[in-house]
């Protein structure tokens, strides 16, 4: 485990997000394929950071992971939101994801008064066991959601009560 600090995401963290997503194996876990698709996703992520809805994990002052809450724009559904998480490939399996999820849950509950958060992952994503350990439960499973060349994957939907 590494010694981590968690802080709000700065606009300047964008370069780290782009760098981590530039690793082809990372993109397997996300819907993006092309540079343009990555750029669109990163912009949408940083857009949420302006509302204080994104967190960055740092190790010795250097970002090593980020998480974001995609706040809902409509009042009837504003009590929950989807989130995303990305950990620097060099810092995986060192507790960064766990720490970010715990802090995102805390931020969602105490600052945004959310009642639940949810996430969509692809079926071969090893983060599934971590999410289950952190009290997430599955509420949907859709086969054939992703087509990556010859690989067809389902998506798993998980949520956690706050």
């Amino acid at each position, binding site marked *: 485990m590494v010694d981590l600090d968690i802080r709000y995401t700065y606009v300047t963290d964008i370069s780290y997000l782009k760098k981590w997503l530039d690793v082809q194996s990372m993109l397997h876990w996300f819907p993006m394929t092309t540079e343009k698709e990555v750029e669109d996703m990163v912009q949408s992520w940083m857009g949420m950071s302006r509302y204080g809805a994104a967190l960055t994990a740092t190790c010795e002052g250097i970002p090593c992971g980020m998480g974001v809450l995609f706040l809902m724009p409509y009042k009837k559904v504003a009590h929950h939101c989807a989130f995303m998480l990305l950990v620097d490939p060099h810092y995986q399996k060192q507790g960064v994801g766990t720490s970010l999820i715990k802090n995102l849950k805390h931020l969602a509950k105490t600052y945004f008064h959310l009642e639940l958060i949810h996430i969509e992952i692809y079926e071969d994503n090893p983060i599934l066991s971590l999410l289950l350990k952190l009290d997430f439960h599955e509420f949907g*499973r859709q086969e054939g959601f992703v087509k990556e060349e010859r690989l067809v994957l389902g998506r798993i939907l998980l949520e956690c009560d706050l």
Partner: protein
Amino acid sequence: MITIRATVESDLPHLVQWLMKGDILQWFPMLNQAEIEDNMRIWSAYSKLGASLTAELNKEPVGLALLYIQPYKKLAHQCLFAIVVAPSHRGQGIGTQLMQALMKHGKEKFHLEMLHLEVYEGNPAIALYQKLGFTEFGSQKRFIKEGPGLYRGKIMMQKHL
């Protein structure tokens, strides 16, 4: 006789009117006119991509349906859709015809292989979706908050085209 055609911008005010009538908004995430107008901007953007169809009766729009075409290549073989029928023309088979046209349009224009939907618990449209071959793949119990401690669930269904 119902005809189905591509949606034009001037159809959207009809959609706003339908959504503002009675209790129809209970089946949608929007709460008020400002949220409906925000949603219409999204509908209009997809419509410009040719992803929206309008059902017409006597040259008047009576139903609209939209494919939320995926912006990502890996997901482009499937998409979510939305459909709204004018409250005054419910129970006349317009939803069925619009759905059949939408599935055909999705397959031919966008090469879709799968369509999916989100519908709230208690919505009578669930029976139509089942009749058209959609099957449930998930449900989220507290999706809509209608008041303190009062929730309505969301059901997710899909169909291979």
